[in-house]
């Protein structure tokens, strides 16, 4: 079984994680631009970080047989530094149309401040102009209100809900997100966000339409195997295999693949130039046929699949 982790901050993760992710069946991931854990104070460091998402990190992932894609944008926290935000907004066009940039993101609200509002709207306009898909980060504090507000503003600026992924959902937000026609992504992140037993129940209740999962694994205590673990748990607890496949692979591909910058053939049948430059020496991506329709093979590396 193949997996995609459509929201993970690999710049903060080690090669041990890449090895384990590859062994667990993750074939592709999306790394959205985020903050570093402490604020950037000049646009130059932001620019260099964005370059690393399309450069070194993409190359690094490939050494483990994983295709790396990214979302580019000004995140909610750093929108509050307006001088910095102005400069970053101006340099985004240099990245947004590059190969493998699947969305503008992750953008949205953190404190729901005026500055965050201003730059969320500015980036929605950019996404609309460039016909891009948008990855929306919903706030961890006052989440239900912030999520509704994020959707209201997206609609106000003329984005089609099918082009917007609302991420970090929970039991309180999921219904409105689905009803209004947006994609609903769930972040399986121990303690502070969703636990995966709860995710199983969400899948049981709402099904698999427009629902998918990610780990948002970053520099905190988080699990880069959250997606395969949750898929396994779902199967163990009676969710149908075809729904699990959609929730852990196919829906994320459909949502972020709308602009053609992530395609299944990228890992199933890579171009010769990609084989040579990204995957030299890695047998995983030498046009090898994947096993279709099989549940994930038992792996000691997964360990316990449940986290709270």
């Amino acid at each position: 079984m193949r997996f995609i982790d459509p929201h993970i901050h690999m710049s903060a993760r080690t090669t041990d994680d890449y090895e384990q992710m590859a062994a667990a069946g993750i074939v592709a991931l999306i790394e959205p631009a985020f903050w570093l854990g402490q604020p950037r104070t000049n646009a130059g460091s932001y620019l260099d970080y964005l370059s690393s998402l399309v450069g070194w990190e993409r190359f690094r992932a490939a050494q483990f047989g994983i295709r790396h894609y990214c979302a580019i944008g000004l995140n909610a926290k750093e929108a509050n530094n307006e001088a910095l935000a102005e400069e970053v907004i101006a340099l985004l066009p240099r990245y947004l149309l590059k190969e493998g940039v699947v969305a503008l993101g992750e953008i949205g609200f953190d404190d729901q401040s005026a500055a965050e509002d201003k730059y969320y709207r500015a980036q929605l306009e950019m996404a609309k102009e460039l016909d891009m898909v948008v990855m929306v980060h919903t706030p961890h504090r006052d989440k239900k209100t912030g999520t509704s507000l994020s959707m209201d503003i997206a609609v106000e600026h003329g984005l089609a809900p099918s082009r917007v992924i609302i991420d970090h959902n929970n039991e309180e937000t999921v219904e409105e997100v689905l009803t209004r026609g947006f994609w609903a992504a769930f972040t399986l992140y121990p303690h502070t966000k969703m636990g995966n037993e709860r995710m199983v129940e969400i899948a049981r209740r709402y099904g698999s339409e427009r629902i998918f999962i990610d780990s948002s694994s970053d520099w905190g205590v988080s699990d880069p195997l959250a997606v395969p673990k949750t898929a396994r748990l779902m199967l163990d607890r009676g969710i149908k295999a075809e729904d699990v496949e959609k929730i852990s692979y196919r829906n994320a591909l459909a949502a972020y693949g709308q602009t053609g910058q992530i395609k299944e053939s990228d890992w199933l049948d890579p171009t010769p130039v990609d084989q040579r430059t990204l995957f030299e020496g890695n047998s995983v991506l030498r046009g090898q046929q994947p096993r279709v329709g099989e549940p994930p093979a038992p792996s000691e590396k997964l360990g316990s699949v449940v986290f709270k």
Partner: protein
Amino acid sequence: MTPRELLVRWLVRQLSPEAMTWLEKSLAQLRTSGKDADLYMAVSLAARKAGKADLALSEADVRDAQAARAGWDPRGWSADQAARVALLLSLDNDPGRLSRCLDQLCITADVSELAAFYRGLPLYPDPPRYLARATEGLRTNMKNVFEAIAHRNPYPSEQFPEAAWNQMVLKAVFIGLALWPIANLDRRANAALARMLRDYAHERWAAGRPVSPELWRCVGPHANEAMLQDLEKVLGQGTEPERKAAALALHASRDPAAAALLRHSPDLARAAAAGELNWQNLAITA
């Protein structure tokens, strides 16, 4: 034909009509547009417009490339790389601007774009301008980017001072890249490089690790007494590829002592002299 015209001709053969229209419009627009942002946008779009298929090049195409720019080897270029370099070359009437734009593009480049920009080094006007950019490029950890500068690219052999050249060859050995595709490798052999490579071989032996047979290629022509002793040891005790490499290296040395050593392996000496044994058919990767 100019290199840019050749690139366009090769692309016409394999791009879809819409893609070709986009490319030709972009090239024309960039000739007159003063805005760097237009170039950056077009270069960004090249992968999705031109696709990533390898250029389908015939022997005649390779000869045309050689004729347009001596030493230029376009084999291994892909369509997106060709399109990107063609777009950059639409600025070639203003070398200062092209160089400035290239720096900005390298600063924000993705891993595939970087390889394209460095592949184009032999084609940019006023070559010495790009020396800092090229040596900076070699500092990369990304093997494909290093390879775009070091392999099938005449720029380093033509423009690099000795110290930069030596660091490139040594790093190629260090990261396990083949040496035989480095353009003009033999022409730039020098004593300092021989010394560095010999020291590296000793470091590897002390660690119980293998030494790439190709390493001796750059030692032979400048082999001093200590190096000749090393070559004698490899000739006598090495694996088959190592013995062949030692024989070729000794054959390249003008020192009569080298010829004397080689006489201990008459078959290899004869094969080297006859050209039956050469670095190309050794084709070693570390």
